[in-house]
């Protein structure tokens, strides 16, 4: 067995990967910006709080510059590196208190450069307020934490992005490969079928979920195709085989016609015509079988009142049987409706009654009945006769095409009547069964139906061959 070539998933995987990475980058960038902004807001708030504390009024009167200066010095004695630094300047610009050296600070918030203790110039966030009397109090937050954060964050972001990129691309490629693998088994089966191996199916064992469903659907479709192909092959075989006899006979009659005088010629021509008619009969029957099995009769299916249909066929066939010295009666008829092709049902019952006509002697009595089984939801149409019957061993065989039982070989019919009846039964989701009528034969068609007032009608007829 050749291993299935793994199809590439094309542009799908990289596209997916790129979208994934872009999304990750956007998300990361957004988080970063948000975090930064939050930090800045926190710093500004801490500056506001700080200024508020340092310049808080004492009792009902606002603090004086001297008092504020005291507080500043107090603060500086207590504080640690990471807190806020201060500068308190008198109205004339002279520094009054605070270690922070800063020049030209405007009121309000600003980003400044300053010195504190060390000669190093640093960056910071400043809040400057004007005090009554013209003095200015400046609180400066070191950006150390922010600086550190910034130093860390960008590399972290880059690393995360790289990780996301790798994961994204990797995941999408792996996902793509997994899909391709599962799909390839379907493709492989399809290729094999196109090459002629109709029995190939998609293995379902290693699949699950959506893929298993897909595979099962596909397999069901293949079953149906195989069935249809088998029908076509069977049809061709049947034609080839069973038409040879009448065609050979015509050949013979034409030879005789050539040889004999005019009376013999006329007779031979009549016989040849009859053989033509019988060939056409076989053709029509085979076409009907094909038509039914290929599902081409679905269009004709509609709700049918079975009692009326049965009555109609009996009324039709009673004279034909009476002319052969046989009698046809109606048995019980339950009120039942079924989704059916009335033409096919007519053909089925007519076929069964014609079998009675051809294969039972004068004096035979036949009864047609229609009964409904409420519990199973099936209706049964039965044709029972008290004729010679069929041996139990032949009950199944006789439903096949072109099977003629020994006694019947010389009488009318083409060996397809029961095959058609069987196909009609299966088309309707039912079955045809033969049984001993003791004496005689009873043939019953079972099909899904509705009894008024009981189970709801089946909306959709079952596909041919499926069991209920």
């Amino acid at each position, binding site marked *: 067995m050749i291993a299935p070539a793994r199809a590439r998933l094309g542009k799908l995987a990289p596209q997916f990967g790129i979208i994934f990475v872009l999304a990750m980058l956007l998300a990361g960038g957004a988080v970063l910006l948000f975090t930064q902004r939050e930090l800045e807001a926190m710093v500004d708030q801490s500056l506001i709080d700080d200024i508020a504390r340092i310049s808080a009024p004492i009792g009902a009167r606002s603090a004086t510059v001297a008092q504020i200066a005291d507080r500043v010095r107090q603060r500086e004695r207590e504080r640690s590196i990471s807190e806020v630094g201060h500068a308190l300047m008198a109205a004339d610009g002279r520094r009054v208190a605070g270690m922070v050296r800063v020049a030209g600070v405007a009121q309000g918030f600003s980003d400044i450069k300053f010195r504190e203790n060390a000669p190093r110039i640093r960056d910071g966030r400043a809040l400057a307020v004007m005090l009554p009397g013209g003095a200015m109090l400046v609180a400066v937050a070191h950006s150390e934490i922010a600086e550190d954060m910034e130093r860390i964050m960008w590399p972290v972001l880059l690393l995360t992005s790289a990780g996301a990129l790798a994961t994204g691309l990797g995941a999408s490629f792996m996902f793509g490969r997994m899909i391709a693998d599962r799909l390839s088994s379907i493709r492989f089966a399809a290729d094999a079928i196109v090459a002629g191996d109709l029995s190939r199916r998609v293995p379902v064992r290693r699949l699950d979920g959506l893929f298993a469903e897909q595979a099962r659907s596909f397999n069901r479709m293949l079953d149906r195709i195989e069935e249809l192909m088998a029908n076509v092959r069977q049809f061709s075989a049947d034609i080839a085989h069973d038409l040879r006899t009448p065609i050979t006979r015509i050949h013979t009659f034409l030879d005789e016609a050539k040889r004999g005088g005019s009376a013999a010629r006329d007779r031979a021509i009549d016989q040849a015509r009859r053989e033509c008619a019988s060939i056409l009969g076989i053709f029509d029957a085979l076409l009907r079988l094909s038509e039914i099995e290929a599902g081409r009769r679905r269009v004709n299916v509609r709700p049918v009142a079975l009692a009326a249909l049965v009555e109609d066929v009996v009324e039709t066939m009673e*004279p034909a049987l009476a002319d052969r010295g046989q009698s046809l009666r109606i048995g019980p008829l339950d009120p039942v409706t079924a989704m059916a092709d009335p033409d096919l049902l007519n053909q089925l019952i007519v076929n069964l009654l014609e079998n009675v*006509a051809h294969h039972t002697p004068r004096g035979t009595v036949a009864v047609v009945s229609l009964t409904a089984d409420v519990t199973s939801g099936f209706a049964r149409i039965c044709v029972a006769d008290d004729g010679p019957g069929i041996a139990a061993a032949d009950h199944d065989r006789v439903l096949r095409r072109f099977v003629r039982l020994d006694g019947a070989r010389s009488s009318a019919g083409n060996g397809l009547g029961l095959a058609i009846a069987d196909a009609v039964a299966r088309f309707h989701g039912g079955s045809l069964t033969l049984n001993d009528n003791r004496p005689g034969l009873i043939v019953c068609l079972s099909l899904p139906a509705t009894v008024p007032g009981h189970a709801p009608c089946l909306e959709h007829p079952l596909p041919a061959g499926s069991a209920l």
Partner: protein
Amino acid sequence: MKLLIVEDDPVIAMHVGQSMRALGHEAELAATGEAGLEALRASEFDAIVLDRLLPGLDGLGVLRKLQQHPNQPPVLMLSALGMIDERVEGLDAGADDYLVKPFEMTELMARLNAIVRRGLASADTPRAPAGYQVGALSLDLASHGAVRGTCQIDLNRKEFSLLAELMRATDQVVTRRMLLENIWGYSFEPSTNIIESNMSRLRAKLALSGQDPIETVRGAGYILRSALC
């Protein structure tokens, strides 16, 4: 009748043409759809016999072209394709009747008469009739009653339909196939004499009230003789 026969197989075309002429009708032949349409433009015909499978423009195509112009003669479609959907397709496309090959010439003739008669009838009386009256015989479609002179005739559904069908085609042959299709709606060929048996019941009942007005036409079908009603 003046007939147009559109059929590409020369053997079949000639056979149909000759048979028609032998019966006293005029027949013109066309071997393609286009030639048929040409002929229709050139002269008036009473009916058209149209093969389905033609080279170039096929039978269905010809029908569609005919639909575009009203007051066309009735069309009997011939075809080797006989499955239910193929029949329906032909009738839906505008054919007045559909006959599957091979066929008896009597079948073709009887059906041609029927579609011509239907065409003339629908031109005169567009509504469906309430009953039929031929001689002393009358049928009432509403009550399903049959009367001959002063006798009430008791008919079951099938016998009534048979009589109605024959009366509709008084003095014209109605074939077994036509009866099977129109009254029973069977699309299959029974292997027993369903039509004959039902017909003989009807004729027996009619014979009780006078002479049997129905004749068997050997090899063709049945005919109701108005003179005998």
